[in-house]
């Protein structure tokens, strides 16, 4: 069984590889190289089985707290390029999903995290499920 919680944050970003010139970045990333922002959705999917007594797979209040502190407080209404935890990350949706996995997996109960999905716009959706998947 999988349980998914949907969170929301708004942030600014731009796609830029610091090793490239401004011209090369503009060529590679097009208008995404310009500073802009999105209303992001972050979907955190956990796997497990419901407790036979409580019917709950995981304490959602605890998950909410973890996601709030580990991700949302750090990125909501900020420029993603200024977030220390994202230093060195080119802030594409797929790289954000991987980075958020990196902070959420160790903060949640072992083996609970199944997938992190970053929804950048209604047209772009990025999923990351760990190294081995």
């Amino acid at each position: 069984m999988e349980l998914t919680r949907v969170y929301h944050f708004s942030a600014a970003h731009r796609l830029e590889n610091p090793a490239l010139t401004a011209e090369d970045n503009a060529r590679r990333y097009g208008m995404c190289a310009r500073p802009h922002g999105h209303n992001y959705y972050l979907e955190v999917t956990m796997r497990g089985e419901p407790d036979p007594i409580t019917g709950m797979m995981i304490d959602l209040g605890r998950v909410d707290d973890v996601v709030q502190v580990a991700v949302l407080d750090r990125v909501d209404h900020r420029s993603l390029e200024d977030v220390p935890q994202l230093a060195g990350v080119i802030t594409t949706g797929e790289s954000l999903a991987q980075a958020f996995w990196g902070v959420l997996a160790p903060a949640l109960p072992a083996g609970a995290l199944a997938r992190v999905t970053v929804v950048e716009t209604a047209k772009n959706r990025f999923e990351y499920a760990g190294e081995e998947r």
Partner: protein
Amino acid sequence: MIAYSTRRFAFSAGHHYRVEGWSLERNEGVFGRLTVPHGHNYTLDVTVRGPIDPETGMVIDLGEVKAVVGETIIDRFDHADLNADPAFRSRVPTTENIAIVVWDLLLAKLGDERLWQVRVWEDPTLYVDYRGGAR
């Protein structure tokens, strides 16, 4: 070639979380405000799978899915108190357990060859996917 078809349904139902045999204090300690009767507008996505019938071009007649889910799930749980339903007599009506109950009821009608997944949304921020198996 296997294809998957999903049909969306909606039902509104009341519930509260309480373990029979626990004291009020213990229930409130574990479930907090969820012990207070309240309700949700649930969304249910039912996914069926199978080969595409060359004659009809369909995996399954979604009209049949609509009829089965309507009679089995929606008629039973829409505008109902989930805690009063026999299916939840010994189960807290969490989203997880609702997914299990819906799966079991639909499996009996659609069969495991055709029923692939049920997704129960409690609200736009929480959903549970269940495809049968360990629990």
